[in-house]
């Protein structure tokens, strides 16, 4: 019936599902007050194995399960990326959960299972599957956002995320319906062949509506406004997860839907969304005092930079998106991991004032955060610099001078608020006594991983870029 290679093409997801179920099964056996590090270790093992499985897939590219998924360099790249994000976030959560008295092993299970959704998003070529995968990742993150059960803001962020998320999903669905109406199919490649014969107004509107759903996930303006609230309220490691994983996956879907279907009429939508995201994100962040909120606005702006690459010419633009997604994941997960450690019990210390004088109280942590901030600004020899560099060069090469000018000015403005974090850490006296906990080993490992990735992408990006280019070629064919 179904050839066994099909299962290999689904292997990373299967591994994650098995380990996710394992975590859920063991969870009830643990006592109420035991810590959940063991479960974390199991989850970590699952994530690592699924990364290995993704690498293993290189020999087995092709379609599987009646053309539901397509394993190609593109999907493998995102599988590895999402697996890495999940692994690093799990590592960063070990101590965090203990500290915040969160004793639900489901946390790890949900991270693994929503990663399944994200991975499927990157390999699915059928809108049905994309939709279900999107929902798995969304529902997982809705719950994760509310995991600090005794903090009202956490539940609130969960509720806001949930309501607006399902609202956006409804629009996405309506878009899919219109696309189906325009082409009579929900398969990306069939849609492409139908659209090639001429597009109808239905298709245009369908694309616009689908962009709403995906734009919501990537936090691009004007569908970004949930971001600051949700990021502020959700537990910091969860924010690290949901500001990168679903974003990368949604960008993957967006790439597939926009480029593989050669859908018409989205250029100016993306253009406008990119400009709005960059500008609103950066202006919003200028006066933020809450670090999580500041990073939330920053992630809106970063989504804007990625959208600039969408507007650029095909293969270059796509590879720039892919590279940026990787660099962004490295630096953003790192930044939020640091924030999660500094936040301490009950996430009490999350304002810039609490970061004052960190340069002396915790020099190592401050140095690491500084590097992530520099990367977010786009200072050379960090991944953030090269990512921006590629994006803007790609846009320049596609005659998007206006977009490049706006982007470059925006990134100059953005330096101000990232720098504020550094200024507070090194050049301000602490206002009150803020305890900094000893760095736990697991978090250290995860920070080191993010740091290494950030620097690696900034110094030796050649291989990743080649890979991104190969993936882009798969997509545009």
């Amino acid at each position, binding site marked *: 019936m179904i050839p066994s290679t099909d299962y290999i093409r689904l292997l990373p997801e299967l591994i994650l599902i098995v380990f996710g179920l394992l975590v859920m099964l063991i969870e009830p056996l643990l006592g109420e007050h035991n810590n959940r590090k063991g479960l974390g270790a199991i989850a970590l093992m699952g994530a690592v194995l699924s990364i290995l499985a993704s690498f293993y897939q290189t020999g087995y590219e092709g379609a599987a399960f009646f053309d539901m998924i397509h394993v190609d360099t593109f999907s493998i790249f995102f599988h590895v990326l999402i697996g890495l994000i999940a692994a690093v976030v799990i590592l960063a959560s070990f101590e965090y959960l203990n500290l915040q008295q969160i004793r639900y092993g489901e946390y790890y299970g949900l991270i693994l299972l929503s990663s399944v959704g994200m991975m499927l998003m990157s390999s699915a070529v059928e809108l049905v599957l994309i939709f279900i995968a999107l*929902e798995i990742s969304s529902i997982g993150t809705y719950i994760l956002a509310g995991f600090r059960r005794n903090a*009202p803001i956490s*539940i609130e962020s969960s*509720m806001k995320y949930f*309501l607006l998320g399902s609202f956006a999903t409804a629009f996405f669905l*309506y878009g899919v319906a219109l696309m189906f109406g325009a082409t009579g199919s929900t398969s990306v490649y069939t849609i492409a062949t139908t659209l090639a014969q001429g597009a109808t107004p239905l298709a245009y509107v369908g694309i616009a509506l689908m962009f709403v759903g995906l734009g919501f996930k990537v936090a691009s303006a004007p569908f970004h406004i949930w971001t600051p609230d949700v990021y*502020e309220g959700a537990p910091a490691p969860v924010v690290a997860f949901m500001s990168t994983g679903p974003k990368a996956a949604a960008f993957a879907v967006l790439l597939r839907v926009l480029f593989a279907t050669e859908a018409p009429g989205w250029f100016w939508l993306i253009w406008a969304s990119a400009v709005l995201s960059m500008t609103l994100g950066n202006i919003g962040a200028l006066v933020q005092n809450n670090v999580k909120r500041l990073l939330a606005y920053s992630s809106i702006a970063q989504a804007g930079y990625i959208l600039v690459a969408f507007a650029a010419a095909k293969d270059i633009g796509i590879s720039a998106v892919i590279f940026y997604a990787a660099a962004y994941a490295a630096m953003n997960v790192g930044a939020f991991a640091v924030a999660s450690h500094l936040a301490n019990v009950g996430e009490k210390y999350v304002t810039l004032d609490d970061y004052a004088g960190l340069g002396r109280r915790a020099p190592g942590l401050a140095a690491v955060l500084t590097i992530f901030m520099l990367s977010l600004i786009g200072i050379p020899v960090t991944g953030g610099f090269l990512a921006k560099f590629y994006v803007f060069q790609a846009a320049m090469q596609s005659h998007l001078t206006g977009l490049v000018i706006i982007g470059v000015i925006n990134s100059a403005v953005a330096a101000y608020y990232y720098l504020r974090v550094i200024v507070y850490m090194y050049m301000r006296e602490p206002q009150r006594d803020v305890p900094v906990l000893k760095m736990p080993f697991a978090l250290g490992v995860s920070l080191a991983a993010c740091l290494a990735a950030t620097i690696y992408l900034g110094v030796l990006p050649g291989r990743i870029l080649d890979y991104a280019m190969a993936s882009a070629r798969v997509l545009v064919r």
Partner: protein
Amino acid sequence: MVPISYYLVLSAILFACGVLGFLIKRNVITIFMSIELMLNAVNLSFVAFASYWQALSGQVFVFFVMVVAAAEAAVGLAIIIAVFRTRQTLNPDRVNLLKL
């Protein structure tokens, strides 16, 4: 025989009703019902298009939308209960510790 566009128009109006409900109601549960209304409007479109294209995949999609709706309902109602426990209110305007 009723033309297919009639169904689509009905679906659009129902969808707009759902949007309106989401935007203006003051009770989280009703807001959530509005989302269900929107999903149903989409389903109607799907079924209409499916019979226009004679493609059953549209009907299959509807089936999956219902699965998703069920899942969302379970999670959403649980979140609503959690919110109600901490705030003793169903009015989303009163749930705004997070802002600025």
